[in-house]
């Protein structure tokens, strides 16, 4: 009888769920707004996933939770930190050519860099969970000012010919700076390109130059942003890979850990 495992990634805005089978294939993914009731949303996600793939209770193995709210999700059997979850996730989601090195996770409200060795073991990690610069929040705020959506910022920025310099490090001040750039009639695409460069630089500042070896892999919601990927490639001067199902990398990793538990 085939067994299935579910991983839950409870962020502050979105709750992500992923289902994998015992081979490590990703069967299904789902995301919902967290809302006020974390636990309820999680339970609903699990039920919906099972329904969609017609998985019975007996077939369901471990349910593993990660993320900010991991300890309060009642439906989960156990919890694990996001660092470990993301490190496991890339075993499934990373493209085959990627040599284990650095995972750059750009989430909604935080960003992390996880350093792996050749065996996918976590060597070290850096986190920015104090300020919104370099996170999805930054992109959201700027997208709103420029009257576009978060899905469009990437493709639009690729069309830029002369990126602006965004100086402010803080989201609140960057907001004012962007407004003034708009008023001075700068092209939206150039502003977006500048924003992506600023984000990339911000995150790269967290990187430890001593941790070399392997390639860079993007995960998290920010990985869907082609503009951000381009900015990273430009600043780091090397190829940047993108994980499959990047927003669900944490959930997939959690599910994989659950799978190992049996």
């Amino acid at each position: 009888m085939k067994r299935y495992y579910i991983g839950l990634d409870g962020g502050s805005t979105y709750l992500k769920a992923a289902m994998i089978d015992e081979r490590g294939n990703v069967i299904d993914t789902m995301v919902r707004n967290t809302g006020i009731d974390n636990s309820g949303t999680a339970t609903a996600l699990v039920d919906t996933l099972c329904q969609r793939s017609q998985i019975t209770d007996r077939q369901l193995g471990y349910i593993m939770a990660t993320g900010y709210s991991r300890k309060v999700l009642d439906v989960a059997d156990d919890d694990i930190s996001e660092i470990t979850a993301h490190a496991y996730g890339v075993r499934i989601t990373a493209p085959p050519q990627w040599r284990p090195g650095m995972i750059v996770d750009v989430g909604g409200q935080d960003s992390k860099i996880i350093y792996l060795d050749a065996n996918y073991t976590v060597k070290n990690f850096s986190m920015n969970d104090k300020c919104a610069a370099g996170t999805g929040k930054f992109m959201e705020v700027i997208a709103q000012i420029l009257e576009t959506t978060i899905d469009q910022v990437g493709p639009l920025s690729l069309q830029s010919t002369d990126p602006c310099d965004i100086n402010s490090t803080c989201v609140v001040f960057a907001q004012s700076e962007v407004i003034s750039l708009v008023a001075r009639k700068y092209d939206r695409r150039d502003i977006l390109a500048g924003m992506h460069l600023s984000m990339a630089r911000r995150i790269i500042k967290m990187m430890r130059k001593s941790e070399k070896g392997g390639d860079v892999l993007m995960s998290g919601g920010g990985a869907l942003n082609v503009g951000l990927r381009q900015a990273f490639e430009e600043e780091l001067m090397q190829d940047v890979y993108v994980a499959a199902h990047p927003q669900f990398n944490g959930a997939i990793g959690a599910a994989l850990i659950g799978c190992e538990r049996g």
Partner: protein
Amino acid sequence: MAYADAIQEQREQRRRQRFATKSMHMTQKYLHRMRDLGGTLEQMEPFFNALERIYVQGLDVERPRSTKTVGTYCVQVPQELIYAAGARPVKLCSGHYTAFSIGDDVVARDACPLVKAIAGFEHMGTLPLYENCSLMVVPITCDCKKRIAGLIKEKWPVHPLYVPANREDEDIEHYLDDLYQLMHMVSHVTGQDVTYESLANALNLTGYAQYELSRFLRIKRTTPNLLYGTHAMAVMNASSYLDAGVWASAMGALNDELERRARANELVSRKDLPRIMLTGSPIVFPNLKIPLLIEEAGGMVVADETCMGERGMSDPVVPVDASFDGLMRSLAIRSLRPCPCPTFADNSQRIYRLRQMVRDYHVEGVIYHVLRGCLVYDYEFRLVEEELESMGIPVIRLESDYTDQDVEQLRIRSEAFVETIKLKKGPLKANRG
């Protein structure tokens, strides 16, 4: 005008009252968290009581009326000299969050929180531990200590102790002169002369404390998981507020109990928990945030290389020559030579200390604790990281401040680090159930 002054005085009174209540609550919170960890022994009560007495009940250290207290601010001050002059030394480096929030406005913005907390207590004047001191001996080690020596002069007589940056023979000689000067000063304050007998008795007193500490550390080494590292650190911290003899005999009782439990294999946690060593900036009660987080996250703080914990007292005085000068000399060399404090220009010996501790305690991971603003410890992080890496021991740098607002961020890092070590050892076991 007098009326306005009276109003102002009342306002100040209420402010002090609020401060005292708030700091009391803060201390209680950490005492509760410490006890909630589990695994506390009856023999630890004398130490917890000492901490409670100072910070919750707001009383002075327990001492005879006639004995004066002398505040010290770094391990380089030999406590033996203070005992020899008939006074009681108290270590006044502070770990209090509430005092920190006051001191934050008084001293430099980027100063370390330890010194801000000292400034806070000085400013508010509510804690008898500080208020009743007859003398403050401040070693001039790092910049912050240097400036706090000047600041607290407003309230207390301050004797700066010049600690040399190097440890050559000439530096020892100079420091020895400074120790004689310190002895004069303390004698002057207490009115009691230092005799050979009083100095020898002081050495015997602290020697007794060191004997019990050596025993404690040996017990911890041979039988891990006998007690939580948080409790061990609290017990060692308590030595700041107890007479050395009282502390030593309480330690003796604790050691006896621990030995009994070791024989009966009564441990407080599983033996396979990740063995973590804490090193870096001082961890002073009630700032037990980091060891608590590590142990709540499923790790075990088996060793600490911090000056208010193990490292502060672990080097014994070795009297080589029986003359008075010989005893003084042995105090001088003990205070300087083996001290792996990063305020010395060349502190490469700290690496060997860490290596030995990794070996002794079978450490699996190191958490390098840096207080925000503590540059000297931060300087050494690279060196320590390289060394540990060459030994295959993972290490992360945790920076913290005297506030509860960074707890979640520290928690996620501690948990992830503990998991990293667990994963190295094998597939992860369950957290819940």
